[in-house]
């Protein structure tokens, strides 16, 4: 399974998202490859991803993608990430 953490530049909030996704996966006892992408390359990379984690604003710019998209409001709230990731993993 491949998860893409999408942010604007690929090095600030995207890194935070990747860290939170990794912690949440650990909590859920699941494994996945987690990559960071900036919004400029995200659409192309999304073709090989199973799940995309980003913000509401950036999700709107992502365009149509095959992968399921989850949006995060609070980047430091692990509970939000665990809850949304669990729902997405159960649904896929």
């Amino acid at each position, binding site marked *: 399974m491949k998860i893409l953490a999408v*942010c*604007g*530049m*690929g*090095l*600030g*909030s995207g*890194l*935070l998202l990747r*860290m*939170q996704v990794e912690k949440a996966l650990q909590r859920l006892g699941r494994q996945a490859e987690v990559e*960071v992408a900036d*919004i400029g390359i995200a659409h192309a990379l999304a073709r090989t991803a199973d799940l995309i984690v980003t*913000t*509401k*604003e*950036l999700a709107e*710019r992502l365009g149509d993608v095959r992968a399921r998209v989850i949006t995060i*409001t*609070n*980047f*430091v*709230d*692990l509970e939000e990430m665990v809850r949304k990731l669990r729902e997405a993993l159960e649904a896929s």
Partner: protein
Amino acid sequence: MTSPDLLNLLPESAIRVNVPAENWREAIRACGEVLAATGAVDPAYIDQMIAVVEELGPYIVIAPGIALAHARPSPAVHRVGFSWIFLEHPVPFGHAENDPVRMVIGLAAPDPQSHVQALATLAELLADEACRAQLLQADTPAEVRRVVRLFAERKACAEASHLSASGGNS
């Protein structure tokens, strides 16, 4: 290889409290000016930080009341660095859920790696409700740094005891 920790990247001179700002542009500008004053970036970086929000919107408001302002690695970035400013009055950034913003974190990253460890500590610190409250109440940069230092020490202590506990079991 470990990257520099948060406390090393956050001298008192990189922190300002009670900063006046009328709107998000002024808030980012104030944060960028502090970052430039530390020598981490050229003043040109400040406009780049503002341009990110103009182009991509307020997604940089990463948590209620907290914005992480930064731009791409560019020739205007000299080294990894942070600046933290606390606004006198919170200002809206146009974020549907996390407005208004009270704390603006400026980040300068010359590459995708050298700030990773500091950013990880920052995320843990901001996730800690008590620490976040202490930060927002701090009256001086020294007090802000003290909150960060105590958190870092507590974390190091917890990791050390975790290591020795797992070492004892093996």
